[in-house]
């Protein structure tokens, strides 16, 4: 309670962390990057489509698991009948070979898994990485040594082999998407985040304002929360933005190897697995999930890069917006100009008065 009060107090008085103006400046810098804006719109659309999957498929009148044996040519290996994978008014993106399941429904439901798993994994990676990195950076020699070695061990772990091993021993009843997200985040990503955060913490801890907070008797945890985390926000957010596409690819890879989500739940990676042999006979079966994956990863990467630029003052200086000082000074001038005129105007009568007075 007292700490919360103190936090509120400091928030009010601490001028070094102008939260509102920081977000404002971030948005101003992001806004000027057209590619990042487009990417953000694409990501927003994808998330919306994933969230609204049941609505979208209801609109189409299909679902992702029902078989349509009449729409495929059984004698020819189950290839969809008709051009572009049997695309029609009923099946907007055609049907899946061998089953006749609706491709559009499977794609939008697959987005739920691919995006959900990757975002969840990123969250775990960031929380774990920051906690470990800050603890290592602020702790004593032994804590640093132990935590850094643990991090090194995880960095050197091969993701795919670990995932295969873990998936084999976890009971079948454990929800698969959660498990996949946990595996991706535990065996990759968090450790590099931790290393980066530790290095940043070591750099920050010797700065005067952090030393001051320590010298003034603040506890380590309070110093970490109040003084270090704001300074870590920019690099961590940047890193997280780059982790997301990496995690999407990891989920796809795990599903591609057959250890991702369980059928009949679709995921893009899983669709790619079953589609890889169909690239000649039914190319759209491979191209649709591949395209979805490509667009998502590309949009996430561009957005991540935009976020990085917006948060990095040095990179931002290359943007056309500059620091905003020019405009400020212009505005200042503009604001000063009428005053000056008024002053002049005021001066003139005064002078006149003086003159008049003088004359008088």
């Amino acid at each position, binding site marked *: 309670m007292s700490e919360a009060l103190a936090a509120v107090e400091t928030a009010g008085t601490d001028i070094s962390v102008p939260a509102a103006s920081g977000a404002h400046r971030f948005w101003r810098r992001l806004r000027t990057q057209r590619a990042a804006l487009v990417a953000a719109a694409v990501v927003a659309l994808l998330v919306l489509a994933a969230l609204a999957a049941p609505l979208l498929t209801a609109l189409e009148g299909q679902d992702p698991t029902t*078989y349509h044996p009449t729409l495929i040519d*059984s004698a020819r290996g189950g290839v969809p009948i008709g051009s572009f994978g049997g695309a029609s008014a009923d099946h907007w993106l055609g049907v899946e070979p061998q089953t006749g399941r609706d491709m559009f429904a499977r794609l939008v439901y697959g987005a739920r898994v691919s995006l959900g798993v990757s975002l969840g994994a990123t969250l775990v990676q960031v929380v774990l990485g920051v906690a470990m990195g800050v603890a290592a950076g602020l702790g004593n020699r032994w804590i640093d040594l132990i935590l850094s070695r643990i991090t090194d061990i995880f960095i050197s772990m091969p993701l795919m082999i670990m995932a295969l091993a873990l998936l084999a021993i976890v009971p079948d009843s454990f929800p698969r998407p959660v498990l996949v997200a946990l595996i991706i985040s535990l065996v990759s990503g968090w450790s590099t985040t931790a290393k980066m955060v530790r290095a940043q913490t070591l750099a920050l801890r010797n700065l005067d304002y952090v030393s001051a907070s320590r010298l003034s008797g603040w506890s380590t945890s309070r110093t970490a929360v109040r003084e270090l985390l704001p300074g870590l926000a920019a690099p961590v957010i940047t890193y997280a933005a780059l982790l997301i596409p990496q995690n999407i690819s990891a989920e796809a890879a795990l599903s591609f190897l057959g*250890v991702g989500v369980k059928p009949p739940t679709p995921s893009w990676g899983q669709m790619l697995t079953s589609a890889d042999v169909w690239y000649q*006979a039914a190319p759209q079966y491979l191209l649709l999930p591949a395209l979805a994956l490509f667009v998502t990863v590309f949009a996430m990467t561009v957005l991540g890069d935009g976020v990085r630029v917006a948060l990095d003052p040095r990179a931002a200086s290359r943007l056309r917006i500059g620091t905003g000082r020019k405009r400020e000074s212009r505005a200042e001038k503009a604001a000063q100009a009428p005053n000056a005129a008024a002053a002049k105007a005021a001066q003139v009568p005064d002078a006149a008065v003086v003159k008049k007075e003088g004359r008088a």
Partner: protein
Amino acid sequence: MRQPSVIARRVAAASVSLVMAAGAAACGPKDNDAKGSGGDSTPRKGGTLTVLNSEPQADFDPARLYTSGGGNVPSLVFRTLTTRNRENGAAGSEVVPDLATDTGRPNKDATVWTYTLKKGLEFEDGTPITSADVKYGIERSFAPELSGGAPYLRDWLVGAAGYQGPYKDEKGLSSIETPDARTIVFHLNKPEGEFPYLATQTQFTPVPKSKDTGTKYESHPVSSGPYKVVRNENDGEHLVLERNPNWSAATDTERKAYPETIDVRSGLDSSVINQRLSASQGADAAAVTTDTNLGPAELARVGGDKALAARVGTGHFGYTNYIAFNPTVKPFDDPRVRQAIAYAIDRSSVVNAAGGSALAEPATTFLPNQKSFGYTPYDPFPAGKAGDPAKARELLKQAGHGNGLTITLTHSNDKNFETSPEIATALQDALKKAGITVRLQGLEDNDYRDKTHSVKTEPGFFLAHWGADWPSGGPFLAPIFDGRQIVKDGANFNTGLLNDKSVNDEIDAINKLTDLDAAAKRWGALDKKIGDKALVVPLFHPVYKRLYGKDVKNIVISDWTGVLDISQVAVK
């Protein structure tokens, strides 16, 4: 497979997949025209035949090979007492004499079998082949260091159970007699009317004792067939066979041996094999494969190309994919639940999942749909093409599951289109219509095999498949339904845990028959009787489609192997 040991059963299980791989290699024109393709179809001698395979010819020693009917590549080098008939279709599932003058002369109760060798038989070095060489070849297959063959000989021959092979026990097996250089007599534990089928396996190949180099023999086995091994690299990955001048066509009516050289290249990816065969360029124009068939996607592409479609052969092999129940697990102890599932399944969507109507035929019988197995059509729970969910709901209601039922289907995560997730999800979708909610339990393939073949861990409802070592009802039904073959600790294949005295007695009675046609009929009747118990639900029999190069002629595919027989192929 009479009372095999635990290890023997494991080997047998492995063999099913090996045989499967061999069986997956089917080739030949759709009309089963033995003359082959092209305008000038007369096969001539000469040329080099290239074989593009995924599995290497590992352990190329007749003692160590596990084959059905003597195998395909092995059969070019190793002759056996009997062999499979090299003819298209059903005629190809018959046993015919090879080294012997006939398929064997049994005594009255089929416990003693006598064979006489043909005259003028020679090894590749010109020395004559004697009955002692055949006996020695069988004996060395008992040596622990030369393991790998089928378990039957150890189970069937008198006094063979503990035999350790001629390296340790020079006296040999007294149950194999060689009264003279051309006669060999086998004494069996019990009546085995199907002994002639067993005598097609490579363990019945003559091996000259003076040339035996033990485990090194596989690098240059002494040939009795039309070709000899001139090169064997990386344990059978690259095998070069050349004509054996001491093989005489006069003593061998089965092998044609047209090409001069046969170049077997293995370790290739199946998609690479099919891509090379469809391009058919350079040496690949005279290429075939004996272990790779077309997948559904490849079939879809080939189907759109007339020139390619003309180079696709169709083969059948005795094989059944089915649903297995464990009746000790609830709710599958109730026959009505098992029957409801049998009614609810949609065989057409299962067939599509397995690759479509060209690669799978819907099955209602456990025995493969071939005469040699004793195929007797029956369908105790007619589900029609797409299932009968109404009938299934009715049965479930009677069984007290009127509000629906939730069950778990165990399957393998292997991408084999047999026990794989594709088949499982097709079943899941069909059972949904009957109010049955199916949860899928996918297991890693080894784990899956261990779990389903152990009495202690066997799930209640899972996907299974079975193939026989030879085209007869015996090796198909006995391991799965003979109550005396339930193995408590070890690999068990009687997954329905059926121990019915009338079934066991009938199996014994049929084994006494030496008239294989009469035996086949009774196997068929027994299959129907067991089918009524709904311990298994047959799903489909696979069909194999095989591409071959554009210069390949004289295509023969028997129902025994389902594979293009390379002893018949010509490339000129």
